[in-house]
């Protein structure tokens, strides 16, 4: 989970030290930054995956969160009045309050772990969506190429055949014209080779697709076993 980031915002040094120390013994450690309320600058320059708010200077909480995006995941460990907490929850649907009781570090780590896993899963899902869109575009191009192959081959037959006929019976063609026809013939052969390579890749992909799909289905069965 190194790709996720956590920002601890607190004016209480002990809070930051305790939480960081607990996190460091965990198996999966996110990138952790610590800021005090004075350096926060209304959250204008930071966009963490998770914001853990510890005790701040009195009355600073509302002001601190003013410019923060509504979608930010927040764990609030600072004491807050019920009314203020209600307002904050309304504004930040992903805010969770963890009272500073004896086991607060365990609760924060547990909730933070889940929150970061969700962030990571969302990131992967977005990435997969982008790749799927890219693949769909490429598949459209591939299908177009496959559909056009027939026309391309017919055109190439005329190109190659007529060049060969001219070379076979040059008549009164000049040496320069003959050389140009030879070039056309050679290039037509090269295009033909390229098209054949394309065909062989297409057929290879078809052969590979079947076992690949079978394996994917197996993977899905492992990940999501039917009950």
């Amino acid at each position: 989970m190194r790709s996720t980031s956590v920002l601890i915002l607190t004016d209480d040094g002990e809070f930051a030290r305790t939480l960081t120390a607990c996190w460091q013994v965990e198996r999966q450690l996110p990138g952790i930054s610590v800021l005090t309320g004075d350096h926060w600058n209304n959250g204008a320059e930071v966009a963490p995956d998770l914001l853990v708010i510890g005790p701040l200077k009195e009355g600073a909480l509302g002001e601190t969160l003013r410019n923060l995006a509504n979608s930010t995941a927040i764990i609030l460990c600072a004491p807050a009045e019920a009314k203020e907490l209600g307002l904050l929850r309304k504004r930040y649907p992903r805010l969770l309050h963890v009272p500073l009781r004896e086991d607060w570090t365990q609760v924060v780590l547990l909730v933070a772990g889940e929150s970061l896993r969700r962030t990571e899963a969302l990131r992967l899902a977005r990435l997969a969506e982008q790749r799927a869109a890219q693949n769909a575009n490429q598949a459209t191009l591939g299908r177009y190429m496959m559909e056009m192959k027939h026309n391309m081959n017919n055109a190439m037959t005329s190109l190659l055949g007529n060049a060969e006929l001219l070379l076979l019976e040059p008549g009164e063609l000049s040496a320069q014209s003959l050389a140009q026809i030879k070039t056309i013939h050679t290039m037509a052969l090269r295009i033909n080779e390229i098209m054949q390579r394309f065909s062989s890749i297409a057929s290879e992909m078809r052969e590979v697709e079947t076992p690949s799909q079978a394996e994917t289905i197996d993977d899905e069965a492992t990940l999501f076993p039917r009950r």
Partner: protein
Amino acid sequence: MHFSAAENPAEWTLVPKKVLIVDDSPAQVKLIQGLLEPEGYWPVGLSDPKRVEEAITVERPSLILLDVVMPGRNGFQVCRELKENVRFNAIPVILVTSKDTASDRYWGQQQGADGYVTKPFTREELLRAVRRFA
């Protein structure tokens, strides 16, 4: 070239072997004709695949070069129907087509085709296939 079947050898003449080219594209027919004629064949073109049987009856070709992708009746169908007909099934059929996958080739064989040439072909490739049968 081949000798005509006259009883008296003195009357034997060189008669070019007739090759029926069935392709909906006149340019392709003309091209194949141009490639076969200098080699001593007598190519006859047909662009309507529905009239193949009629053309065979009239022309009596030694070999048929048959395109596959054609409107109305495709080359696989034509080949299958010729090979099922005792009047025509002795005439060799070479499929000359842009369909170049292994499954196309296999399907052509299944329809009874005697040869398979993929487009684009070189002059040598076409002649090699034709010389096998005529």
